[in-house]
């Protein structure tokens, strides 16, 4: 207001603000002023003095106008209510004003805060926020811009913490609910019990047989065994890329040998699954059915051996949660298994071929009875998605590895988790049982592969296997004499089984190794990669 031109006000009326050469007092006056406050600029006068009434009043009184007449008048005025004389009550202006000032300042502060608050430009989100704050989501005639402004104003009053708090509370309650979980049981269908009995009857003789074989093998003299081993190692050392085939125009995620080692099934991110004849790598079949990335395709344990071609020979799963069953004759899936709502990472056949295990990203894995054509087990236990599953060679156990970095070994007969594989830092992407029946290998995102002993219930060795995450582990299927690991560092590696020293690095892929398999006769090794090829590896000397 009167801020900028304060000196002008101070100059006497009737005189121009700018100095004029005319009258003498004017420059002197300004000069005086300058000398007064020589070190500061001309001060601003916040009030204007218009003169006093005192003199006039005195004159009036001198004239004798006061006295009785005046008093009477005053009385009359008081009676009329024109003059109000209070009884000494004082209204403190200072306080009132400072209060009002504080209010105004607070309002300024609020506006400043409001400016700094970031409010979503998405109208639906704005509405959601308003709803969360307990405000009407819209007012009559209010557009998105006004709504947004309203939300901003509200937030500037209640603070942005209000929204964050509600969000956090939600998360917390969710988490605590999960953490609260303790071991509990629910009753499954009766078919589960019958299936479990069946598995028990199936697995126990196999276990005895396996142990007997192991004893027999142990009776073979040490020298023979070592010579056998050395031979094997020698042949493995001479492994070489035998053939490479472009499988599809998208990365190939999985490969699996048929039980008779004559076919190789590959799964691709394009949604196609292909069957290749081995070892000439010619396309036999293309299985069309999946629409998204296929995670895995596996042969039935008896497929191509004793199973009819028209029977269900293959099972595959995809990222959209579809699981499809195939025979060897048609291009179309024979059946769909429905019930997965999230990505199914892997499928695996039970050694008996009667059951199919699937792992799902909804933190569960399932066991399907294909005879009864139903889901007999929906097993939870992982705190994150389950990635890989493997069955014990006897058919008695199942091992699952999850994104929670833990592995679990389940007894299929009792339904119990009999071993907890804790030690990996990151997700477990591969799990496999050794044919010797008591070793488990897990491959993880922390670039290591761990070998666990079921009998001793502990991790026996940690193989610092790769320089990137390990996508798959596989024991040699006949005797388990070596271990194959594949990883995102574009290599697959072969390790001796007890001893876990590196034998050979299968390098040749230009992309990450996504899947690998060893043929059941142990002659061929297949790896498939992100570079859209799969490669077969074979010992040269043989």
């Amino acid at each position: 207001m009167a801020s900028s031109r304060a000196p002008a006000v101070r100059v006497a009326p009737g005189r121009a603000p700018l100095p004029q050469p005319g009258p003498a007092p004017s420059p002197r006056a300004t000069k005086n002023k300058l000398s007064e406050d020589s070190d500061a600029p001309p001060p601003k006068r916040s009030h204007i003095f218009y003169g006093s009434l005192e003199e006039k009043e005195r004159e009036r009184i001198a004239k004798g106008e006061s006295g009785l007449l005046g008093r009477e008048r005053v009385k009359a005025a008081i009676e009329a209510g024109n003059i109000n004389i209070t009884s000494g009550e004082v209204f403190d202006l200072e306080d009132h004003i400072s209060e009002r000032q504080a209010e105004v300042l607070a309002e300024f502060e609020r506006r400043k805060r409001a400016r700094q608050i970031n409010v979503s430009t998405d109208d639906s989100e704005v509405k959601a926020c308003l709803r969360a704050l307990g405000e009407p989501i819209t007012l009559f005639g209010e557009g998105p811009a006004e709504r947004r402004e309203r939300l901003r104003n509200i937030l500037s009053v209640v603070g942005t913490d209000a929204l964050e708090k509600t969000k956090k509370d939600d998360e917390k309650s969710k988490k605590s609910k999960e953490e609260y979980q303790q071991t509990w049981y629910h009753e499954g269908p009766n078919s589960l019990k019958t299936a479990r009995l069946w598995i028990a009857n199936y697995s126990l003789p196999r276990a005895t047989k396996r142990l007997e074989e192991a004893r027999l093998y142990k009776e073979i003299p040490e020298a023979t065994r070592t010579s056998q081993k050395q031979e094997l190692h020698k042949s493995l050392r001479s492994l070489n890329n035998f053939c490479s085939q472009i499988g599809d125009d998208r990365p190939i995620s999985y490969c699996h040998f048929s039980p008779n080692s004559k076919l190789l099934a590959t799964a691709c991110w394009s949604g196609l699954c292909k069957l290749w004849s081995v070892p000439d790598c010619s396309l036999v079949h293309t299985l069309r059915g999946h629409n998204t990335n296929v995670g895995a395709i596996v042969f039935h344990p008896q497929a191509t051996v004793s199973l009819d071609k028209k029977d269900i020979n293959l099972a595959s799963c995809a990222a959209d949660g579809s699981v499809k069953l195939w025979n060897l004759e048609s291009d179309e899936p024979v059946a769909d298994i429905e019930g997965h709502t999230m990505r199914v990472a892997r499928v695996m056949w039970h050694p008996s071929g009667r059951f199919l295990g699937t792992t799902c990203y909804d933190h569960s894995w399932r066991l399907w009875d294909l005879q009864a054509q139903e889901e007999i087990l929906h097993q939870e236990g992982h705190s994150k998605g389950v990635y890989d599953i493997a069955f014990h060679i006897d058919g008695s156990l199942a091992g699952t590895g999850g994104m929670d970095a833990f592995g679990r070994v389940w007894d299929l007969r009792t339904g119990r988790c009999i071993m907890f594989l804790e030690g990996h830092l990151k997700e477990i992407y591969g799990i496999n049982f050794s044919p010797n029946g008591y070793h488990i290998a897990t491959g993880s995102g922390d670039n290591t592969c761990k070998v666990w002993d079921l009998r001793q219930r502990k991790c026996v060795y940690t193989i610092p296997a790769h320089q990137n995450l390990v996508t798959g582990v596989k024991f040699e299927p006949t005797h388990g004499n070596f271990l194959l690991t594949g990883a995102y560092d574009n290599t697959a590696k072969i390790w001796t089984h007890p001893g876990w020293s590196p034998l050979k690095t299968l390098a040749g892929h230009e992309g990450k190794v996504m899947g690998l398999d060893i043929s059941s006769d142990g002659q061929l090794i297949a790896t498939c990669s992100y570079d859209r090829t799969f490669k077969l590896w074979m010992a040269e000397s043989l």
Partner: protein
Amino acid sequence: MNYIIEGKIQIIEVSLLVKMSLSKRELDELKPWIEKTVKRVLGFSEPTVVTAALNCVGKGMDKKKAADHLKPFLDDSTLRFVDKLFEAVEEGRSSRHSKSNSDRNRKRELKDVFGDDSEISKESSGVKKRRIPRFEEVEEEPEVIPGPPSESPGMLTKLQIKQMMEAATRQIEERKKQLSFISPPAPQPKTPSSSQPERLPIGNTIQPSQAATFMNDAIEKARKAAELQARIQAQLALKPGLIGNANMVGLANLHAMGIAPPKVELKDQTKPTPLILDEQGRTVDATGKEIELTHRMPTLKANIRAVKREQFKQQLKEKPSEDMESNTYFDPRVSIASSQRQKRTFKFHDKGKFEKIAQRLRTKAQLEKLQAEISQAARKTGIHTSTKLALITPKKELKEGEIPEIEWWDSYIIPNGFDLTAGVYSKRDNYFGITNLVEHPAQLSPPVDSDTPVTLGVYLTKKEQKKLRRQTRREAQKELQEKVRLGLMPPPEPKVRISNLMRVLGTEAVQDPTKVEAHVRAQMAKRQKAHEEANAARKLTAEQRKAKKVKKLKEDISQGVHISVYRVRNLGNPAKKFKIEANAGQLYLTGVVVLHKDVNVVVVEGGPKAQKKFKRLMLHRIKWDEQTSSTKGDDDDESDEESVKKTNKCSLVWEGTAKDRSFGEMKFKQCPTENMAREHFKKHGAEHYWDLALSESVLESTD
């Protein structure tokens, strides 16, 4: 009650008179009194009258008889004389028995002060201590006092008198005790009342609150009583003559009768009390009660203290056992603070005490750890109780390579007596634990929580940045203007520069340009200073800057440590070694370097960025294959040739992540043998790094 007391006092007086009639000595002492009286009555001294009067008194006559006896000497003034005489005698007696008498006086005075009611209330308030003796008195009275006091004292037998005397003294003593009991300076409640408590009736109890009020009253009264007593004492002291001989006589009489006077009197007494000893050699009074005599105190301060301590200890030991149990009025909740502080001494622990405790703690901790492990395992596998866990865990530990009869997971479902050896694999249903129950084991959250959504920062283009800055500044400026407009803050002084000074301060500039310029320059300097200060305030301090740098270098390894393992063929060059160590130190990497012939393993742990830099150092920056200095190759050509043949190089063996660091600060370790190297790694739980590095080098050499 009061009446009884009055009566009693009279009895005492009479008895005293009687007693006086028996004692010649006392008569001798009375003589001057009587002479004086005679002189006063008759106006002159008359020895015959005196002797006659003494005779009368000495024979224990009453007033009437005495009057008859003295009539011939004194004629009409006989009655007056006899009255006076008896008054004098009484007076003399009263002064002689200053102490006991004062007691009685006090009692009377008290009564005067408080009135009858107060007396009663006093009685009731003093229930604990006083009532009983009073009752006793009432009971005793008929026995002790055979007849009314007005009857002739001559009728009393000697024995009776003695009994009366005893009763009287006891009463007096009790009074004293009660008073001393309540009076503040000597709070020793147990000792004086030692003989009394047996007689206390148990049924006579009062409410605690009442008791408290009574107690307060009693204390108040006692205080007043004490005051009165003091006043009396003072009054008595004003009459030295009274205390002088008469007192002595009374005391002597008392002693003669074998009654120990109250202790307080002992102080004013010059003559020793007769010492009576019982068969055990203890000092006793006439009634056979044990009394404490004042002992000769040692004069040395140390000795005094020693004796005091001894006594104190004695008291401490004895007191509680003596009467605490028997005294129903003893309140065990109230602790008596001992007047003397216990002397603090060293307390030495027995040897091995703490060792034992530590051992116990250790075993306990071990047990707990074991239990925790079991429960942990139980929790993980989803099996709750340890018994269940025991059921499913393998029964015996198998050695490596041993083949069991049956796998433990199979044995769990097989019932006892199941024939394994038989080749009968018939379908059976009698397995153990096969149900249709689906387990939901407790879920463990993953070790690395990667759930937190990764948010990308919003990066603005240069244009956007400028726009944003412009907007915010404009808004701030607007706000400022608004505030000035509303008068909430003073307007800023006009901003002047050299370039605009003519416009802003036109008049003044023209009038005194130098001054105005100086002013403008000062303002400019001020602005500059404010700006620089604001910048400096925003700046981190040296420490903060350092901390920030270190924090950035150290990285966050809570989500797992990045590890890389390198193998170097030849790490003999100290320059290279130094580079490794220095870089690891600077990057805050931990790890180990194991030097073993041509397998030198470098393990480093740390954050990802540091690893990246270290990797670049190892694989690119250090030129491993460059020839070592010529000075080394001079002395032995052979080795030099060999090293040339095998070009030195470094290879990355493995890189990955682990939960924790397994090594400490970077160290170099020379290991002559493979085993030693492996042992060294095993010590840190990282033998697989060595294994891998070694086998890789072996593979390389065979290729």
